């Protein structure tokens, strides 16, 4: 039986982890590769690097990080952040990423998703969907796509957008609720469920995890195929193992090899 995936996400800036792993004693908590190795050993199902490097000149450091991670960790690695061109995707895949997450470039040019999937295959194209609720209280739920870290509205309906990118060849959707991101009050379950039920590709729930129960809700009620979290793991509040045991205790299939 296919298992629910638990995916830690590391923010990387100029080749360094922004909120480094603190659950084990690392020689260098800012080194993404050391953090990746720690998560590999802890039983993470996949790993996600989100590059938040501001300048494009520093891209080289990210490539080096991806390459060294791929040498040391034999698990799937998704890399996102600042991916604008087919060449960006090619470089990340050649460095050792298994999947590349695209966000703004797909919002600006939907056909980019089609070209990327045709070139590299559906299996490695993840489309990041950052959505915010725009409906008034009391009226039916409606979410729109926001870019620039949730600051810039686009007017694009999130459900329609998800269906569109799925039809164009996205292999997976990384769905982040910009209302919940950083709040620790749980995923936006209504949003997650609306998107997961609207597409036939897997959806990763993200944004708002504060407890292990939130992960259970993301899968059970949100119908996500995977749950992504950052701080809950990095600061040692919970281990990957605890997350999986919680999911299992709630009747959800997990991998504990």
């Amino acid at each position: 039986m296919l298992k629910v995936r638990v995916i830690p996400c590391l923010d990387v800036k100029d080749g360094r982890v922004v909120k480094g792993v603190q659950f084990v004693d690392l020689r260098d908590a800012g080194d993404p590769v050391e953090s990746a190795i720690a998560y590999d050993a802890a039983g993470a199902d996949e790993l996600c690097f989100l590059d938040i490097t501001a300048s494009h000149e520093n891209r080289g450091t990210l490539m080096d990080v991806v390459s060294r991670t791929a040498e040391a960790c034999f698990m799937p690695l998704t890399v996102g952040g600042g991916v604008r061109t087919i060449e960006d995707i090619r470089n990340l895949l050649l460095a050792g990423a298994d999947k590349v997450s695209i966000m703004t470039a797909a919002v600006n040019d939907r056909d980019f998703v089609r070209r990327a999937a045709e070139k590299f295959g559906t299996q490695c194209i993840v489309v990041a969907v950052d959505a915010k609720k725009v409906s008034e209280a009391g009226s039916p739920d409606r979410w729109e796509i926001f870019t620039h870290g949730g600051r810039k509205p686009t007017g694009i309906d999130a459900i329609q957008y998800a269906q569109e990118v799925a039809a164009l060849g996205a292999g997976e959707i990384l769905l982040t609720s910009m209302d919940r991101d950083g709040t620790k009050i749980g995923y936006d379950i209504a949003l997650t469920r609306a998107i997961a039920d609207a597409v036939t590709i897997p959806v990763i729930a993200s944004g708002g995890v504060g407890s292990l129960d939130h992960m259970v809700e993301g899968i059970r009620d949100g119908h996500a195929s995977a749950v992504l979290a950052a701080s809950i793991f990095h600061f040692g509040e919970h281990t990957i193992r605890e997350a999986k045991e919680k999911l299992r205790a709630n009747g959800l299939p997990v991998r504990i090899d």
Partner: protein
Amino acid sequence: MKVAIIDYGSGNLHSAHKAFERAASESGIGGDIIVTSDPELVRSADRVVLPGVGAFADCRRGLDAVPGMVAAMTEAVHEKGRPFLGICVGMQLLADRGLEHTTTPGLGWIGGDVVEIKPQDHALKIPHMGWNTLDQGRDHALLAGIPTGTDGWHAYFVHSFHLQPATPDTVIATTQYGGSVTALVAKGTVAGTQFHPEKSQKLGLALIANFLRWRP
């Protein structure tokens, strides 16, 4: 021992290279792992690995675009009897035909067609992406020491098509995804995994070590 991982422009071979190196050193088997697009090195290798990601037709086109490569692979396998491992689309290419988008001829080393997976449960997502266990149909050296079945170890899959064999005897293991999905095939010195051993942590490294030890 020399192991040739064939580079024909289908995706990144960095992690496959490193995983084979790790498995070779951890198991004490050792060996020289090379990533190559040179048919001569494939012809003279002791073991040959054919990876592959993306669409069947693209991979076939890429393989054909390397002059002399298919001939070198065929010679290594069918004349010299070298162990051969196809991974993901590299495994699918072993079939007679791929039916993704258009009909594309495969190598025809393992009878069957590559067809879309169609889970009976329509709530199941496509691609089949993530970790799944293996159901072993019969004993095979590649699965030696690897726990299979519901409580067994997991392999990492990401695919929408699978090899539907012409005869069941080539199927070593399947996985369950709204029905039976082909996971591991073998015939003579040729084997292939639908999953990615280079991404399957413990199970993956054990299977690669088994492949390096395999004496069919």
